[in-house]
């Protein structure tokens, strides 16, 4: 009988321990997500995405899926609340940070006024590699936008609002810096000409397909609307066989794409961007690799985080 008895929930501020909210007659099978919605009603400024609810003021956040009666609480549950700050959805952030480079690069490509000397306004480069580079760069970001809309399944709905400023500065800033030189009237094409460009394009396309294949494989690991985590394995698609050696081949392929683009344009700012991106992706890959190892006892031991056998 006790199982069906309705519970009471009190929510305290994690820092001040003030009683913020008292909920009466809560179903024992209510989820944290539902409790967050109820809390939101009494405090409209704290929408569920910015609520961090924990059992302990300094403890980890409880998940939205956690069920009240399965938590170590009595008939009256005491939770602590911390405001995560204004939140923005991952989808919004991705779309904004990717749309920027796409448009910014095109502005430089078309030599919109006030960038280069006036006599070059709206002219086009005489080097065919510059046109190719524009197509590759644009394709890359269109692919990213489409993947954000149709492929990726995000674990988290939101991130802190300030991230959008940080991320956009990074992506938009580097895009402008690269595009300035590649589309410059004084641009110098690669030293080894057509051979170099052809090799670079091959690497770039190979890695774009590879990266896409990995995104599809990861999507298929997770049923729609779910947040389950499983070990990814190679599929029939040869581009996914790299999973045998690497935990995060999406990052491996991404690095490859940018190495290809660097080779294609022979532009130092592109090399810098590739290097910075590689450092960041290595940090992420190592983190992901570590959580795979922690979560799965039978995680394949041959795999490295991002570079086979090396890193």
């Amino acid at each position, binding site marked *: 009988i006790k199982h069906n008895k309705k519970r009471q929930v009190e929510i305290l501020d994690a820092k001040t321990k003030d009683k913020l909210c008292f909920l009466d007659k809560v179903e024992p099978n209510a989820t944290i997500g539902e409790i967050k919605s109820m809390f939101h009603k009494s405090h409209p400024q704290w929408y569920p995405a910015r609520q961090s609810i924990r059992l302990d003021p300094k403890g980890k956040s409880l998940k939205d899926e956690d069920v009240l009666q399965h938590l170590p609480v009595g008939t009256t549950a005491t939770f602590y609340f911390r405001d995560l700050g204004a939140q923005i959805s991952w989808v919004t952030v991705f779309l904004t940070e990717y749309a920027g480079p796409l448009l910014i690069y095109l502005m430089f490509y078309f030599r919109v006024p006030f960038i280069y000397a006036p006599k070059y306004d709206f002219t086009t480069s005489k080097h065919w590699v510059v046109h190719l580079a524009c197509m590759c760069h644009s394709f890359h970001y269109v692919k990213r936008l489409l993947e954000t809309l149709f492929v990726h399944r995000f674990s988290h709905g939101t991130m802190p609002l300030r991230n959008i400023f940080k991320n956009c500065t990074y992506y938009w800033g580097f895009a402008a810096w690269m595009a300035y030189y590649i589309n410059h009237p004084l641009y*110098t094409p690669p030293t080894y000409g057509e051979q170099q460009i052809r090799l670079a394009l091959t690497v770039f396309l190979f890695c774009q397909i590879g990266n896409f294949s990995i995104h599809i494989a990861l999507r298929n690991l997770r049923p729609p609307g779910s947040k389950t985590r499983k070990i990814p394995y190679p599929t029939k698609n040869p581009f996914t066989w790299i999973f045998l050696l690497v935990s995060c081949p999406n990052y491996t392929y991404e690095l490859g794409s940018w190495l290809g683009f660097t080779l294609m344009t022979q532009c*130092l700012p592109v090399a810098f961007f590739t290097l910075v991106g590689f450092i960041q992706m290595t940090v992420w890959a190592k983190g992901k690799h570590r959580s795979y190892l922690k979560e799965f006892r039978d995680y394949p031991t041959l795999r490295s985080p991002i570079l086979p056998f090396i890193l």
Partner: protein
Amino acid sequence: MSAPAMGTRKTAHTDSSNKKKKGPGTLAIAYLVIYNVVMTAGWLVIAVGLVRAYLARGSYHGLYYSIEKPLKFFQTGALLEILHCAVGIVPSSVVLTGFQVMSRVFLTWAVTHSVREVQSEDSVLLFVVAWTVTEIIRYSFYTFSLLNHLPYLIKWARYTFFVVLYPMGVAGELLTIYAALPYVQKTGLYSITLPNNYNFSFDYHTFLILVMISYIPLFPQLYFHMIRQRKKVLGHVEEYSKVE
């Protein structure tokens, strides 16, 4: 604004003398004591050099030349402090220490050494004096702290002199960079132009202007952090004397 690069590293040092569990080993402490003694001595040499040259010449002009070599040597030597943080024998942030030391080294080599024409400017003397007094106090502070015998005078000096020395150093640094600008533009120093094989360009003149602008957000933050540190460190001593 790297003039008195104090407070941020200071907290770390009191922490290290308060930490009873883990910290640098005896060998590390011995090394650090030697390092800090040598640096104190080095900056004293610079101070003495300045005074002697001033007395000999009777003017402030061109004193830089009399201490150019020890200044370069001991200021560049401070790069070791980044290593100390990286290795862990000094509990400060590598990034913060790196930033502070690199900005000093930048001013010493990439501005004053590289642009001969600014070496006779009075602004150089302004920051050299600020740095010299600051470093003598700072390194002796560290030396005494490591030996667990810190005279209140040194602690007080470290947390008080910056009030004047910091703005003085910043003024000297900014004026020096500003003085260097026309020469950098004229000679294209450290600049790369298009076209070139790596499709890259760098304008040192613009870069220096951006460096000057960066002082605007950075200097107040560092300065007021030091002011807060002062209240914290020197503040509670006054409370004790009130209690008595």
